[in-house]
């Protein structure tokens, strides 16, 4: 499955950890500029797909391509990745960490500082620029992590449960920021359980179950398949009978 306008192509991806098969056979693609929802119950393998796509895991079989190539840090694409497991250098100041990541993403120091100041102003944390990260609240740290993720205007933005731990105000702020990147032409992969967010942001979605795609397509198409049910109802109908696992 490959399309000329696809930024991400996943073909017959299989992932095994020892004797356990997490993904059995998965194929889908994500077009340039679209916002794609990767959905599934806990333990369905969403994070595994992302980690394999980014080269953190080596797939047992199949290919996972970005711009028709296996991703490495030297790939010719600007990537913004907000992992599910979050954290930054807690003993460092906000500005030190943001500048560091900006530099690693290819920005000059000056550009990284200016961008960070602007971002902090926007998210109401300008006065915390010289504060150590471990002195910030959980929500404030999340904002910094999001800032680090979107530095240098990524072409591909991968957000693994980005609203986890956000209050409604910050959730709205996050949604606005994602929408801005959508408008700027970024491709967004959105891993979440929040169907409201999916309906608001995603063009297409895939629902993972038992290591394969249970549903794949536009939201309207999937709704039609399930006789016009809401995404919440579709989710419950697919996963409702499954015990909830804790890890992906």
């Amino acid at each position, binding site marked *: 499955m490959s399309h000329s306008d696809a930024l991400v192509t996943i073909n017959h991806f299989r992932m*095994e950890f020892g004797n356990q098969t997490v993904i059995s056979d998965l194929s889908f693609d994500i077009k340039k500029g679209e916002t794609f929802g990767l959905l599934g119950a806990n333990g369905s393998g969403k994070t595994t797909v992302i980690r394999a796509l980014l080269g953190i895991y080596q797939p047992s079989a199949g290919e996972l391509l970005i711009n028709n190539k296996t991703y490495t840090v030297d790939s010719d694409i600007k990537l913004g990745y907000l992992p599910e*497991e979050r954290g930054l250098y807690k003993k460092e100041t906000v500005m030190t960490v943001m500048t560091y990541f900006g*530099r690693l993403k290819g920005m000059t120091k000056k550009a990284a500082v200016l961008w960070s100041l602007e971002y902090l102003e926007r998210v109401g944390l300008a006065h915390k620029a010289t504060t150590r990260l471990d002195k910030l609240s959980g929500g404030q740290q999340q904002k910094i992590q999001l800032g680090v993720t979107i530095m240098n205007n990524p072409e591909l933005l991968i957000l693994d449960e980005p609203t986890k731990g956000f209050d409604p105000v910050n959730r709205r702020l996050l949604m606005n920021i994602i929408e801005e990147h959508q408008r700027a032409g970024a491709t967004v992969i959105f891993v979440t359980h929040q169907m409201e967010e999916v309906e608001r942001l995603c063009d297409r979605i895939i629902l993972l179950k038992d290591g394969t795609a249970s549903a794949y397509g536009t939201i309207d198409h999937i709704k039609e398949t399930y006789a016009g049910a809401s995404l919440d109802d579709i989710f419950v109908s697919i996963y409702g009978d499954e015990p909830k696992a804790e890890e992906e």
Partner: protein
Amino acid sequence: MHNLHTVFSFEVTRTLKKKSFWITAFAFPVVISLVFGIIFFSNQATEQASVETKNQKFSFAYTDESQRINTQLASQLHATMLSNKQAGISQVKAGILDAYFYYPSDITTHKVEVYAKDVGLFDNNRYKATAEALLQQSTVATIPQETTAILQNKISYAATTYKDGVEYDGFKQLIAPGLFLVLFYILISMFGGQMLTSTTEEKENRVIEMILTTIQARTLIIGKILSLIVLALIQIVAIMIPLIIIYLQFGDRLSLPNIDLANLPLDPLRIAIGAGLFTLSFLLFTGLLVAVGAAMPTAKEASGFFGVIMVFIFGPLYAISLFVSAPQSQLVTFLSYFPLTAPIPLMLRNAVGNLSITEALTGIGVLGVSAIIILSLAIRLFRYGALEYSKRLSVSSLFVTKNNTPRR
């Protein structure tokens, strides 16, 4: 190169901002200064007390059955001679005399007896010192000056040794190449802990995924190692400057050995071998410490292995006499070529001059290959263990499991 420089700058800058870095850097010279200060003031106080004791005048009498006391000398000290021991003791008891010394007929088998008025625990020493000085000076006056110098070990000797027909001072020769061994110990002792925990931070802070999708693991590890080397050098400078100042200002008062640095022999070949051995040894142990740290989920768990690694560094010191006296023994050969024990015997033997060129090159080869293997293993462990947030990574699992091995 850009990312390597960024990692390097980040690691150096943030460490330099830490109070703990400067506390560690200055704790050593401060402790050394305190020790030297105590020695200095103690020497000064002892000297002063000695002068005061010498100048103190107290009345004393003596009885000399040994026939060794010079009466003229005793008179100069205003001492009076008594023929009766009991009378002397009685006069001290009555407070008529401050002290009374009794020299028995055979001073080799009987004690010289000192009776005196108590003037305090420390000041009471002046009586014995005076009795001793009177006997010594009386004896010295009866024998030739040269004999006195010989007996008092005041003769100076000048030894000249030759190697291959050329004048050779073994002690001075070992100073320059031996500095590499000292440097190695200082660096590992001061920075070993930091090397061990340098890679656990990313894991503990859950920042590893963002890092691994932004830069090469190799770049991160090398950047960290380079930063540790530079930080170690900064710390050494911070330690050495106060020590040099102390040496230059107070060296003569601290009875420190006076080394003529201007005439220190410098053997370019041994210094080059020393530098090579030091560099590779440092890389080998840095790699080992980083590898252990990368396999551990937390800094606390990693720290538990520090002692084990230190055994390899300090253990060979128990065979130090063998390295010098029996360099061709099987034990020394084994310790010289076993990678984890090799640094100490190789650097020490190079310093004392019993490491042949062939042995040095073999040692450099062993250390070089081992350093590359260990550093590669460290990078692999870091990449592979990146997402093992809560459990230790075994080296065997690196080679057995294939399914979730990172591909970068």
